[in-house]
Each structure stands twice: as structure tokens, then as C-alpha cells.
């Protein structure tokens, strides 16, 4: 048993070390070579477009279910569904917006990135990049990291928007809350800090998703089976890390008054 724990820990440390080395290498190449602007734009568009529909749909229904649950519960206690807008917006903008967007992007674009880079690794295309004067970190990793860091916060904003719209639809048409009251509840109780809270989280999730998915791809070995394992590993790792990081980030940001 100790042997398998030891092996697991060694593997974990190797992966953390490898990811850190990749990030260090990315920073090095960012300042020592030409930025692949065309690649970066292409990746941003791909990641954003691929994930937009699912993110919007997930957030819309999350907002709707939040409004329904909050309205019914508060209605049972106080007789009227009050503060539905506040509850929906707080939950979405501070927590669920960045978390749901991160999870959706991990499963959609993150998996695609790992599978693509992983396939390149097992078919020697990454070695071919070295022989053609291109460092794979510079050519593959930096544009994708850029893509995640640019699109996750933007998609989080859209996610918040669609969630609030979903909440509005249920609050107004199912619970009978006046539309002005729903929005006044949001604007009265929420400040810029609440937006910053969610926004900072989305940046950190984006960085983490980019790092894990690119590292898992680049370190893929063992043919088609290896690509499958890396892709599954990348998605599971990023989703778990999003949830774990979310708790610690909430604790830290709240401690700083954000």
C-alpha cells in the first residue's frame, strides 16, 4: 500500500513540477521570441466560439433554477418571494458564473486542447516543431494560454448575464415578481467588489485550465490510449481544481474585503 501511495505522490509531484516548468518556459519564450499573434487570435476564437453556446445554456438554466428555489423557499417563510434578484445575482456573479464557465470550458475547449496537443506528441509532430526552428511552448502553449486567459473572463461575463436573464424570466413570469423590483434588488445590494470577486476568480481558473490542459497534452505518451488518458485526466483535474480553488479563493478574497 505504501508503495502505491509513494508512486502516486511521486507522479503527482512530477506533474506539478512539470507544469511549473512549462509555465516558466512559457514566460521565458513570451519575452524571448516573436508572439504568435495569428495563432493566439485563432485559439481565442476557437475556445470562445466552441464554449459559448453551452456556457449560455448552462447559465440560463442555473439562473432559472436559482430563482425558482429561492422564490419558493422565501415565499414559504415570508409569504412573498422577496430578494430573488439579489440571491440569483450574488450566487452567479460571485460563485457560479466563474465556476460553471470554468467547468464548461474544461470539458469543451480544455479537452480539445489536450487531445490536439497529445495527438501531436504521440505522432512526433512536437518533435517536428523543434526540428523546424520552432519551440512547441512558444508555438502551441502560449497562444492557447492566451486564448483561455482572454476568453474565460469574457465568457464568465456572458454567463452572469444569461444567468440573471434566466432568473428574471422565472421571477417575473413564474413567481410574479415585478421586473423593476428584480433589478432594484440586484443594483441595491451589489457593488463593484462583487463583480471583481468573480472576475479575479475567472482569470485564475483560466490560467489553471490552460496550464493543466497544455501540460497534459505535451506530456502525453503511448499512442491513442495515451491521448485518451491525458484528455480524461485533464478534464477531471481541472474540474476538481476549480472547485477546490474556488473555496480557497473565496476565503482569500473575502479576507481582503473583495
Amino acid at each position, binding site marked *: 500500500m505504501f508503495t502505491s501511495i509513494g508512486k502516486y505522490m511521486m507522479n503527482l509531484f512530477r506533474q506539478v513540477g512539470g507544469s511549473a516548468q512549462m509555465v516558466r518556459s512559457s514566460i521565458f519564450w513570451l519575452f524571448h521570441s516573436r508572439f504568435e499573434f495569428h495563432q493566439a487570435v485563432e485559439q481565442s476564437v476557437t475556445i470562445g466560439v466552441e464554449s459559448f453556446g453551452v456556457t449560455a445554456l448552462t447559465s440560463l438554466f442555473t439562473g432559472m433554477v436559482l430563482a425558482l428555489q429561492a422564490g419558493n423557499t422565501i415565499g414559504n417563510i415570508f409569504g412573498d418571494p422577496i430578494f430573488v434578484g439579489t440571491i440569483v445575482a450574488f450566487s452567479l456573479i460571485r460563485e457560479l458564473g466563474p465556476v460553471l464557465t470554468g467547468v464548461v470550458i474544461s470539458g469543451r475547449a480544455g479537452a480539445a486542447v489536450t487531445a*490536439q496537443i497529445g495527438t501531436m506528441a504521440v505522432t*512526433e*509532430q512536437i*518533435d*517536428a516543431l*523543434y526540428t*523546424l526552428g*520552432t*519551440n512547441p511552448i512558444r508555438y502551441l502553449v502560449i497562444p492557447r494560454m492566451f486564448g483561455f486567459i482572454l476568453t474565460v473572463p469574457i465568457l464568465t461575463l456572458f454567463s452572469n448575464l444569461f444567468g440573471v436573464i434566466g432568473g428574471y424570466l422565472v421571477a417575473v413570469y413564474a413567481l410574479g415578481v415585478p421586473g423593476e423590483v428584480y433589478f432594484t434588488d440586484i443594483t441595491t445590494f451589489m457593488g463593484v467588489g462583487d463583480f471583481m470577486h468573480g472576475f479575479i476568480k475567472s482569470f485564475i481558473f483560466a490560467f489553471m485550465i490552460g496550464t493543466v490542459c497544455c501540460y497534459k497534452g505535451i506530456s502525453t505518451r503511448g499512442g491513442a490510449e495515451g491521448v485518451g488518458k491525458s484528455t480524461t485526466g485533464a478534464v477531471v483535474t481541472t474540474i476538481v481544481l476549480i472547485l477546490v480553488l474556488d473555496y480557497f479563493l473565496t476565503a482569500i478574497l473575502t479576507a481582503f474585503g473583495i
Partner: protein
Amino acid sequence: MIEIRNLQKNFGEKQVLKNVNLTIEDGKVTCILGGSGCGKSTLIKCMIRLEDATSGQILVDGKDITQIKSEIKMAAIRRHFGYLFQEGALFDSMTVGENVSFGLKYLTDVPPGDYAKVIREKLALVGLKEEVANLNPSELSGGMKKRVSLARVLAINPKVILYDEPTTGLDPIMSDIISDLVLDLKAKLGVTSVVITHDMHSAFKIADKIAFLYEGKILLYGTPEEFRHTDNPYVKQFVTGSSQGPIQMKLMRE
């Protein structure tokens, strides 16, 4: 000149290369022979640090590349090398033309306006028509992929070309054309070639020197003539392609 001294390469517990010593002379064709999985590809990957050696030295024009820590310095050494990968390693997100011209952007001063001309010339050199440039790698046969990959190598005009089984999967006529191309590059441009091959006909035709790798060691290094007349039973069996001999006996014991 590339000098390999006491090169060892391990993958985990497995020792793939054991004290390999080999000299690759400038402007010559050196063929590396050996059974499947004996470490031939690993050996040439070590020559440009696509794999890091466990121990030993690799001297490229007198400079030990195993000691180079900087990726920028290593990239500067690699720019003189071309590498033909066993399965082609074409970028499947790009067309054939984009694959062939990929290295031009990073390794040469060729202006983008001339890329089409280079693509046409290099594809013609490997016997492919200009129209192929618009196809995707997934639309090509195995042999065509290999030829496109070779065109991609030729486009960057390297001083040294490392070929990983250049004729495998090609018909005999195309194999011979590729062999002629290797000789042509040597004669006209003085290109140094290191060729991993199982094709004895091609090896005897193109090689100035042949090295036979067996169980991670160079068992014999010499001219094609020496290989034809060797008494070494391992080499003799490999050259004649016989199923009977010490290599078979060894396999059976395992």
C-alpha cells in the same frame, strides 16, 4: 563532423543504448542498420537532443551538445539539421503546402512571396505534383506523407539530414528515387546524411559507411564492402535477411 562517445540512453530501468561510439563524417552518407526496437531512432534523436542522453558525449563540430542548457543555443545548433520522421510527422492542421513551407518562416530568409515557388520545387524533387500542395495530410497515402515530409526537410536546406527509414512504405522505384536523391544532395550540396534503414539494397547503394546496432551497441562499423564480406554472424544474418542465425536464436531464448 558528429562524434558520439560512450553514449548511453536509459528509459526508466531499460538500457536502450549502451556505450555507443560512432563518427559521422562530413559530406558522407552513414547508414545505421539494426533490428526493430534496437534503439536506432533513439540514437539519431539524441544527435539533436530530441532525446537527452543518460551519459556520454555528442560532439557536433567539436562542441559537446549534451552540455548545452540553453534552449536558444540548442535551437541554433538544430537549425543546421533536417529530420525525416518515420511516420512523416506532418502537421495535420495544415495543408501539404503549409507543411512544406513551415520551416521557411523560422529558419530561412526566403520572403513569403517565394514560398509557392519553393513548395513547387521541393514537391517536384520528391516526385509529387504541384496540386498535392492543396491537400490535407489525411488525404495522402503513407508513402506520399513520407515524401511530403522529405520535401519539408529539403525546403530548409540543412547541412545534415537525419533520415528515419526513408524508404519504408515506398514502392521499389520510389525507394530508388529517394536513394538517388540522397546521393544527389551529397554530390551537389555536400549534405551529410545519417540514414536509418532496413532496406539493404538502398544501404549498399548510398552508404559511404554503415554501422550495425545490436542490443544497444555498435557491432560493426565499416564500408559497404566490409559488410558484404564480414564473418560476423549477426551482421551476416541481417544483411542476408535470413531467419536462421544467432539473432533468431537469441529471440527464441528470450
